[in-house]
């Protein structure tokens, strides 16, 4: 036997266990695998390497990537460079949390369950909804699940989704819809917002739901109240995919009449992680509680009357309901939900507003500076921390140039929206006035 540090068996251990089984070799235990499908040689993958060599190798790989720590980032488009308070990693690094499984035995998992119950509460507070689950994979998969819920609840077969919803969100939704066999129609835009005239034309009695992003992919804040009126007229549901940080200052979708609110908690204390793992949230009005996908934590009492928490309404779930489940999803993103809960607790009621305000002010400053230099903004509606600017060269080219100056530029709007030389810039509280001024200076330098 070779020695591997995660494998504790000694030769003596193995011998004793095989003796107890009255067999002489481990191979005997694999004798039920037919010989023609047994591997006779080692898997052709790289040999094991020791920890110090491995660490060096991994550092080399990591160092080949430009990070938000050494570049100044103006890229957002669904994943944002926000500050992550130190406390978060200290909490989620507690192995009682990260080395646990789904809390099937509630009495031994009260910490996890209570943290998720608190997460559900915070999601309800931000979104203005009645109930939330304990998370799904990411904002886009949450969006797909929301559409499924709407189709199931209304017994209708069409989903209308604004083109101002994240392109990847629309792509995921299309795949999900292909699975269930319902139809997805996209709604065209004015410049930066959903075209309400077109919405009124396209919505009909087969429309299960209308999906709007808030703020949308352009950073603009859509007029949810007006959209609600149009959906209500046809008894279609309103699904809103919202940036949770923006909800600190923007009116909650629940208050504005949304039936389902989904989104991604990444802006709230989660590392960008090259796009994953993030954390989808999913919240509904009371009426739809029993149709929620995924895990839900509920409050109850123990035999002595003491408050405790359990996974509840499990009859909706795949491990009980099998093909009749509300969703195939078995796991969630519990650890990331915990991280975002710690974030929301750390900033608190006032801090979260202040952070959102900083985002608005920084983005506003940058937009005004750009306008003063003669660049035009594509946003007609008010925006949160992102906006689209018209430049005069291909964005790919500009971003290459900016990279040499230490900036990671914005998202090129041409491939998805056909907007030539237009870029989506994100400005978080992490960017200083100096960063912004230097960025614009670099941009100006290029044109000269």
């Amino acid at each position, binding site marked *: 036997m070779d020695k591997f540090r995660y494998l504790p068996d000694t030769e003596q251990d193995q011998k004793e266990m095989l003796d107890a089984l009255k067999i002489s070799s481990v191979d005997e235990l694999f004798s039920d695998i037919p010989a023609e499908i047994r591997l006779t040689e080692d898997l052709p993958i790289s040999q094991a390497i020791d920890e110090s060599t491995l660490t060096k190798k991994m550092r080399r790989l990591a160092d080949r990537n430009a990070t938000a720590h050494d570049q100044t980032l103006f890229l957002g488009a669904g994943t944002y460079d926000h500050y992550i308070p130190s406390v978060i990693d200290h909490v989620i690094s507690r192995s009682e949390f990260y080395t646990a499984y789904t809390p099937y035995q509630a009495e031994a998992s009260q910490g996890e369950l*209570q943290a998720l119950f608190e997460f559900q509460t915070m999601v309800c507070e931000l979104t203005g909804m009645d109930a939330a689950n304990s998370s799904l994979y990411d904002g886009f998969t949450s969006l797909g699940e929301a559409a499924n819920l709407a189709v199931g609840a209304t017994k209708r077969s069409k989903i209308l989704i604004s083109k101002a919803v994240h392109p990847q969100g629309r792509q995921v939704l299309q795949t999900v819809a292909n699975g269930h066999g319902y139809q997805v129609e996209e709604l065209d835009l004015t410049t930066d917002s959903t075209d309400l005239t077109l919405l009124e034309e396209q919505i009909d009695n087969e429309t299960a739901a209308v999906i709007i992003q808030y703020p949308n992919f352009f950073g603009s804040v859509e007029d949810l109240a007006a959209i609600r009126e149009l959906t209500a007229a046809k008894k279609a549901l309103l699904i809103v995919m919202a940036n949770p940080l923006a909800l600190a200052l923007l009116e909650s979708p629940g208050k504005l009449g949304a039936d389902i609110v989904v989104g991604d908690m990444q802006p709230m204390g989660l590392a960008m992680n090259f796009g994953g793992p993030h954390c989808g949230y999913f919240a509904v009005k009371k009426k739809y509680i029993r149709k929620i996908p995924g895990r839900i934590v509920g409050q109850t009492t123990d035999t002595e009357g003491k408050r405790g928490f359990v996974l509840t309404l499990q009859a909706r779930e795949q491990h009980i309901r099998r093909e009749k489940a509300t969703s195939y999803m078995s796991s969630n993103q519990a650890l990331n939900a915990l991280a975002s809960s710690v974030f929301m607790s750390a900033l608190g009621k006032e801090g979260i507003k202040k952070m959102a305000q900083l985002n608005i002010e920084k983005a506003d400053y940058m937009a005004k500076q750009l306008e003063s230099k003669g660049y035009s903004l594509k946003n007609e509606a008010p925006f949160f921390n992102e906006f689209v600017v018209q430049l005069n060269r291909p964005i790919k080219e500009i971003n290459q140039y900016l990279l040499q100056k230490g900036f990671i530029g914005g998202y090129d709007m041409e491939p998805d929206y056909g907007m030539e030389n237009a870029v989506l810039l994100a400005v978080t509280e992490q960017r200083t006035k100096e960063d912004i001024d230097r960025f614009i200076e670099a941009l100006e330098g290029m044109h000269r």
Partner: protein
Amino acid sequence: MTEYNDLIFEISQPGRTAFSLPESDVPSVELTTKFPKQLIREEPAELPEVSEPQLMRHYTSLSTKNFGVDNGFYPLGSCTMKYNPKINEDVARYAGFAAIHPFQPIETVQGAFELLYELQEDLQVISGMDAITLQPAAGAQGEWTGLMMMKAYHTKNGHRTSRTKVLVPDSAHGTNPASAHAAGFDVVEIPSNSNGTVDLVELKKQVGEDTAGLMLTNPNTLGIFEKDIVEMAEIVHQAGGLVYYDGANLNAILGQTTPGMMGFDIVHLNLHKSFSTPHGGGGPGSGPVGVKEFLIPYLPVPRIEKQKDQYVLNTDYPDSIGRVKGYYGNFGVNVRAYTYIRTMGPKGLRQVSESAVVHANYLRKKLEPYYATPYTQYSKHEFVLSGSRQKKIGVPTMNIAKRILDFGYYAPTVYFPLIVDEAMMIEPTETETKETLDAFADVLIQIAKEVEETPEVVLNAPHTTSVRRLDEVKAARQLIVKYTK
């Protein structure tokens, strides 16, 4: 010391905060000048207001009421709760992995793509497939992705409307029928025979022109290797269907055989199970999917490919099922799995399955005299006991599970698989010592005695956890899913 049981909302006091934000260095913006009145929030979200020390104590206190693999033995069957290596955690936190944006220019993230590409290659070899996608966020999403490809394949071959059925054994994980349904298929359950394996006669009876495919895990959820797998795959293939491998139990066969050799066309892997990435109390996971060559056109886009020395993203697959998740999957989880595979190498992975299987058989052997054992052939990495004897004396399996918690262990998976009465599914994994297995066996033996001698001790369990037995019925009937003042 008084016990701390508060919700974070209950210790909140206006005016406290656990974070400091920078002062604004740009002109202030009055919200009312920027946003129409109806879009400005009227009532603030009631988030807690606590200081940093309060926050740390709150969450530390919660952690003490939680049981993870670092706390002790976690024999949760079909979940493969092996040790989570610490080096994996450190590496995943390197800024070069954690602080990179998914839309950065591709030449600035070549290290990340190199890692993903190499992981794809390793998983291809381990699963015996020809290509891998790392996009699915978890095993169940991998299943659904695989089934969507199955559907796309039949559609392309003109059989979409006729091949509507997916065959799933009655011992399967619940995710199998659920993901088949989400992909738009009808589910046909195939009964197991008395040996706990798929009944070939039944399979032949059900398979036909309407079969899209068969979903199977091997070893199955009873921990038994389906030794007729090659024949089963042939039966399904002959009928024009595809064969899908549920990788939840892959740990048992790492380096021994591959799903590819067994005849499977599509495979998902649960990185948090076989490849040691922590599951975080319910997630994140990662569920890569592998396919044989003829299914490559259907894989989700974008595909990560190598052109000369550059890694690129290729979306040029017109038959692709599309995108299943944002960006490139759960990258941070993939970094951990990559680190693990590099740590173990081919010999280490083979030894994983050997030890996992020895442990399962040894533990079963020790427990057989005390609990009903419906299936007695060699187990792979897990085995299923039945609490039917104990149930007969009035102590259901759930109570045995709760009693186990009193001894500082997590409980096995209970009441699954559904085909075993009072099932207790135990998976010790390779990372436990023989001493732990012996001690756990002693506890289960003691509980079997308690059931006979002092059943109330078991019926009233747990006794030592932070709360006593919780009322699940009440939770569902008087639904409280958020805190209200």
